[in-house]
């Protein structure tokens, strides 16, 4: 098969512009080729994650890349209203696509021929079976259920009948969740399952994950043998690439920080990323700053593409305006002071539901089911929960609530929300950088697997005594050495972020930096052996103090107490390990304390996998980019020394400049969690001064958390003091992403006050 079709047939973007989904594309093509086992595949998709475009791309590739398998793509529509209408359209589409494929003529779709015309276009090899199928479609079924059911079956089995005549097809049925709103006595999904469960042809059933999974695992026929392919939102790099490609396509200028914000803010949702760039193109504006992005995002939310998009989702779920208002109120009207809305009991919500359009329990359940399928809410057996993690949805709901329910002034709401988005943007990136730099406690814990790990990998005292300044290859982490003290790790059967067990922990740490692992000390799975590990990554520039250790032990013990974990083990990881006094505290609490390097070595020992972006240079200006770490600040210092000497700075001033530069570099490397691990330096020499600008991507200085979790760090934090003392002027410039420090030294020293 060719890698890319020359023209789009069903797809909306050219194959070369279709970003990501490499694994999914290969998997689907292998199925179509017959390389993978035949049978069903469930494409379980998050809403608007691009399942439809993926299937259409597959269709286009199959249409022009080979002649063996007839590609068939069919999307269920809400407008079909009944199983019978949908089945008729299914049959028509199958015949039309078969004939178009045989003739290699996609224009047949555009001509929209009726079933008789199609019959005449059929090739001699297919004419017989197509004729029989079209005859079946011409039958006018009676109103009796069994006849309706037989009619639907007849239509839906068209690919199977074709296969019986050596016309093999690869069936892709999309948007199956739309069948949820069908009326009538024939259950479209049940009929489809019944037919395809008996078939040997390759087929894909695609739709919203929450609907599809439930639909195939319940009912009279269960597609238990079907394989699952989960389609999540694009990952960060794919989303960034999509934003870049769309920006180029629409001639919208973006830069790396703004591209990354777009990728992150929309959670990898290709639909929203496209909306924003289309809107920017239409408004002829660039998206090269956080401010521009948030201004446009606000416009899009209040009546733009995003607003219209969600308005339509809500209208489809609940056509009645009062019902929509009730939904918005339900999801936004949280008790004051709660950052995240808590689950609400179903019965309680129904009892207070005042809505003529949804008055019965059955109507209410149906509404909730649709909201759940569309991931507007999370529905469990007896609770309703808001989708707190979806920022765009939450922004939409908040805007609607304030305008419709609270009837606030529109201009005020827009202004306040824009202001909130601007404040949130750097926080969004900071959160991302923190997550990205997390060591992956869940992955490490999950890999424990009853292994005997060297104690030096978990206990900082042992590590410090033996290995702290040793090279990687000098650290004996191999499990085979009998002389090494070992710690038996439990068999972990379940891990989750600590915040999932105990939400208040979010006040002192990012979600990804603390984990709970439930397991058994031995693989026998007995009550006595049941154990829970509660781990957290903590911040400390030097060895963590006893106060810090105590603070964290208190918090994690609270988690154990609240969750009724009777037998538990606390494991703290600090960048530089723990002071002797802190280690003593940890011993008293029966806890482990390790450094980040130990954790990395432990991950290596356990063989876990941890999932691990610059401005171009611009007369008397020098630019240098150095990687963070490895004393590279000295390279920068060497360069500035040479530059300053050429411009007649005194040796003493040169040394001061060097020292200040080194401090700025250390600051960038230490605090930024930089995604590209680079320090960008610009030295501008003017007649009377030299200006040094040090920038880095990552956390902004103002994003650095200063909470109770970060007790006073004593003698550290002198870098800024030194920079200010050694240079004549020091400025912290406002940037969207990361930190930029500008330092000036005059040839003739300024007299400081």
């Amino acid at each position: 098969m060719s890698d890319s079709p020359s023209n789009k047939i069903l797809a909306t973007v050219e194959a070369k512009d279709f970003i990501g989904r490499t694994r999914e594309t290969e998997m689907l093509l292998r199925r179509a080729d017959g390389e993978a086992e035949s049978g069903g595949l469930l494409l379980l998709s998050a809403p608007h994650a691009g399942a439809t475009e993926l299937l259409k791309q597959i269709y286009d590739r199959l249409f022009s890349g080979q002649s063996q398998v007839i590609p068939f793509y069919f999307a269920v529509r809400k407008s079909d209203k009944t199983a019978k209408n949908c089945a008729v359209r299914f049959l028509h589409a199958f015949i039309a696509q078969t004939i178009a494929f045989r003739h290699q003529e996609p224009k047949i779709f555009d001509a929209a021929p009726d079933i008789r015309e199609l019959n005449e276009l059929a090739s001699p090899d297919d004419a017989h079976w197509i004729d029989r199928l079209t005859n079946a479609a011409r039958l006018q079924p009676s109103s009796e259920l069994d006849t309706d059911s037989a009619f639907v079956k007849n239509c839906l089995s068209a690919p199977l009948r074709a296969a019986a005549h050596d016309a093999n097809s690869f069936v892709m049925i999309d948007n199956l969740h739309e069948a949820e709103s069908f009326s009538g006595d024939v259950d479209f999904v049940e009929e489809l399952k019944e037919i395809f469960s008996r078939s040997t042809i390759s087929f894909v059933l695609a739709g919203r994950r929450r609907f599809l999974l439930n639909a195939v695992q319940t009912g009279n026929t269960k597609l238990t043998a079907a394989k699952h392919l989960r389609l999540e939102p694009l990952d960060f790099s794919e989303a960034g690439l999509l934003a870049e490609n769309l920006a180029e396509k629409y001639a919208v200028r973006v830069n790396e920080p703004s591209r990354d914000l777009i990728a992150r803010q929309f959670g990898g949702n290709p639909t929203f990323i496209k909306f924003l760039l289309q809107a920017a193109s239409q408004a002829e504006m660039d998206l090269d700053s956080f401010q521009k992005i948030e201004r446009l995002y606000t416009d899009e939310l209040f009546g733009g593409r995003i607003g219209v998009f969600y308005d339509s989702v809500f209208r489809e779920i609940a056509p009645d305006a009062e019902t929509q208002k009730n939904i918005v109120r339900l999801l936004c009207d949280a008790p004051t002071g709660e950052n995240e809305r808590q689950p609400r009991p179903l019965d309680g919500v129904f009892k207070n539901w005042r809505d003529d359009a949804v008055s019965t329990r059955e109507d209410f359940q149906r509404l909730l089911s649709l909201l759940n399928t569309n991931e507007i809410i999370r529905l469990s057996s007896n609770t309703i929960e808001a989708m707190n993690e979806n920022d765009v949805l939450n922004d939409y709901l908040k805007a609607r609530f304030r305008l419709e329910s609270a009837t606030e002034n529109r201009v005020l709401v827009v202004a306040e929300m824009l202001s909130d988005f601007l404040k949130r943007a750097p926080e969004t990136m900071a959160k991302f950088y923190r997550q990205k730099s997390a060591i992956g406690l869940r992955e490490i814990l999950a890999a424990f697997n009853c292994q005997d790990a060297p104690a030096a990998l978990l206990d900082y005292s042992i590590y410090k005594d033996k290995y702290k300044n040793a090279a990687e290859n000098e650290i004996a982490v191999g499990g085979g050495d009998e002389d090494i003290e070992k710690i038996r790790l439990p068999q972990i059967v379940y891990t989750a972020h600590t915040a999932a067990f105990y939400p208040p922990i979010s006040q002192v740490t990012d979600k990804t930096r603390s984990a709970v692992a439930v397991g058994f000390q031995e693989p026998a799975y007995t009550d006595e052996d049941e154990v829970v590990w509660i781990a957290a990554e903590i911040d400390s520039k030097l060895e963590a103090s006893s106060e810090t250790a105590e603070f964290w032990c208190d918090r994690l013990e609270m988690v154990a107490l609240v969750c009724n974990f009777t037998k538990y083990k606390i494991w703290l990881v600090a960048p530089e390990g723990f002071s002797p006094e802190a280690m003593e505290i940890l011993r008293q609490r029966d806890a482990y304390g390790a450094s980040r390097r130990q954790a990395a070595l432990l991950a290596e020992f356990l063989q876990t996998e941890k999932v691990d972006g610059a401005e171009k240079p611009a007369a008397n200006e020098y630019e240098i980019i150095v990687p963070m770490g490895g004393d590279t600040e000295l390279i920068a210092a060497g360069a500035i020394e040479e530059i300053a000497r050429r411009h007649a700075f005194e040796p003493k001033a040169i040394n001061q400049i060097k020292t200040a530069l080194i401090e700025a570099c250390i600051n960038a490397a230490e605090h930024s969690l930089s995604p590209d691990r680079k320090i960008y330096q610009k030295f501008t020499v003017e007649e009377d001064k030299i200006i040094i600008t040090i920038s880095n991507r990552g956390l902004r200085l103002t994003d650095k958390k200063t909470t109770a979790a970060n007790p006073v760090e004593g003698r550290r934090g002198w870098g800024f003091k030194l920079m200010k003392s050694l240079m004549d002027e020091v400025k912290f410039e406002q940037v969207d992403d990361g930190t930029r420090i500008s330092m000036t030294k005059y040839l003739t020293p300024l007299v400081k006050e």
Partner: protein
Amino acid sequence: MDTEYKIPVQTSGETATVYASDYLNKLSGEKIERECRRQIDAGYKTIVVNFGETEIVNSIGVSILLGVIDAASGAGAKVVFSDVNEDTIELFEMLGLTNHVRVN
């Protein structure tokens, strides 16, 4: 700069002299700290840190030196900084180190 720098030490009577490398940063500072603590534990009452070879000192290195001073003080020993160049003395003064240690 040599990151594998080994800390040279000379002892005489109750005095142990520890030689700092050309760049006093976190890594080399921790090595000096470790060596000084070792000498304090061995019973030396005066710990001399010689900065004859030291060209640049950064703030992390200075914070580690304060840890050395604290450790010595706790063990009844004293710390002396020797052969410190003028720029480094200025730095020590800015950060208040000279309030806690004699600088030769």
